[in-house]
């Protein structure tokens, strides 16, 4: 009797878990299809309508990249003070100065810098993309583009994807440089006895050529993931005003998840390459 009751109670749980799993699988399939369509349009229409698409890419880089420079500068300085300055002081006190370079490259260059930048870009440009494209679709402007023979993916998604990929890469590089430089300055101000040549020498020794390649690849893909996920949510279905906040929150969660999963895959790359 009790076993039967347990089975009865667990049924809704399995049903709801199964439904959720199917929902996630469907979402993943739709996102993958959207990403593939975007890639196909990017490849097939690379040189098409440059007079229209290039200014769009530039304006998106301005919005998602240049306008974020003050915030990224602040975060770079904070990262230098909070993480690098303290870590350098701690390692020096423990007599483990020889590990400064390795710790900095692992923490700042490979992990913290790219992820932090991606999250900032997502907060600034990703969410704006959902609202912008969702409004365009609700106002019928996407249909108007189609009526003029303009491919909405080419006009709306490609510029954002290229711009966000470029922006995340450039901002990450800037953040890392600023954090490493300011980190040394803060350590110096705390009286840590390490010379600039030793500090930067250790960083140079810890960096491998793979770090530059994987950093470029990873940050560009972070930008592309953010763009594709947010454009998908803006364009996929008709959004009522009441839906916008919920869809935007969902897009943020999925973008962060996508970036973290991608980061984990790159971890494999760092280990084996």
């Amino acid at each position: 009797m009790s076993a039967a009751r347990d089975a009865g109670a667990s049924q809704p749980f399995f049903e709801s878990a199964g439904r959720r799993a199917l929902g996630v699988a469907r979402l993943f399939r739709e996102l993958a299809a959207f990403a593939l369509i975007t890639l196909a349009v990017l490849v097939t229409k690379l040189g098409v309508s440059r007079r229209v698409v290039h200014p769009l890419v530039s304006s998106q880089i301005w919005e998602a990249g240049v306008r974020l420079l003050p915030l990224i500068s602040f975060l770079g300085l904070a990262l230098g003070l909070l993480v690098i300055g303290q870590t350098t002081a701690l390692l020096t006190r423990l007599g483990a100065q020889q590990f400064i370079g390795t710790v900095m490259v692992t923490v700042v260059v490979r992990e913290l810098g790219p992820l932090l930048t991606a999250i900032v870009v997502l907060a600034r440009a990703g969410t704006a993309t959902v609202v912008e494209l969702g409004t365009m679709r609700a106002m019928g402007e996407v249909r108007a583009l189609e009526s003029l023979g303009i491919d909405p993916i080419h006009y709306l998604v490609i510029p954002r994807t290229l711009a966000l990929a470029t922006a995340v890469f450039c901002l990450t590089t800037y953040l890392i440089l600023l954090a490493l430089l300011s980190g040394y300055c803060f350590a110096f101000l705390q009286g840590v006895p390490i010379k600039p040549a030793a500090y930067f020498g250790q960083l140079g020794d810890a960096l491998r050529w793979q770090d530059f390649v994987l950093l470029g690849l990873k940050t560009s893909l972070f930008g592309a993931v953010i763009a594709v996920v947010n454009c998908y949510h803006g364009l996929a279905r008709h959004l009522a005003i009441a839906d916008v906040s919920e869809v935007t929150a969902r897009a943020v969660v999925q973008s962060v998840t996508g970036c973290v999963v991608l980061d984990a895959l790159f971890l494999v790359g760092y280990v084996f390459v």
Partner: protein
Amino acid sequence: MSVSAEIELIGVGVSHEDDPEIVLIRDVHWRIETGEWWVVSGGPASGKSSLLSTAAGLIPAAAGELRIFGREVVEASEQEHVGWRRQIGFVFGGGGRLFGNLSVLENVLLPLQYHGDLGPFEALERAEGLLELAGLRAYADLPPDRLGTALQRRVGLVRALSVPIRVLFVDNPLAGLAPSDARWWLEFLSDLRARHAERNEPLSLVVSSFDFEGWLGRASRFAVIAERGFHRLDDPEAVAAYREGSPFRGQARPSV
């Protein structure tokens, strides 16, 4: 052998623009021949806009067969679709669905620049010329939301005309207009059609409207959407007698 129509709908089901599940009009048989001027009338929410969007190939047909320039739409490649889009102008109802982040001039320039048929200076010259023709030159640098709905709709018309077209769909151009604005539309469309005829490039025109007032004597063909069906009116008396909201007593027959 019959000459192929510009656009042909054979047993087409017309669904709502935002919800393909909702079928608004069933079993539409409609042939739009070269140079014809159609006026399709129907009450509010009867499906006029969706019918025009479906005929223009902007919304997939819920059922049946849609042929554009003699080619079945579902069999056509993406290249063919883009080719059609450039030959079919569409003026949306309401405020014309202008791009809010672009100025009036940029809205008109966009298709010219995107398709790259003209150089930058020729494109600008053409866009400014069209705005002048429509009495919109003074508003060229303004964002669309600074214009009233009537003027926004005119910009939508100019944008649709910026590239050379063979067929023009205009969705409910007279809705909510002052009599002087309504007269402007009627005269502009008549002149446009006459200019195309003079150049020996006949323009097929499809307009939707709440009733036939103003269009009688200008348009050549009339149809009504009623009882979820598309009804061609061949009898001039039936056309003259039709009023929006009145019980439909026209001829219900397939127009193939």
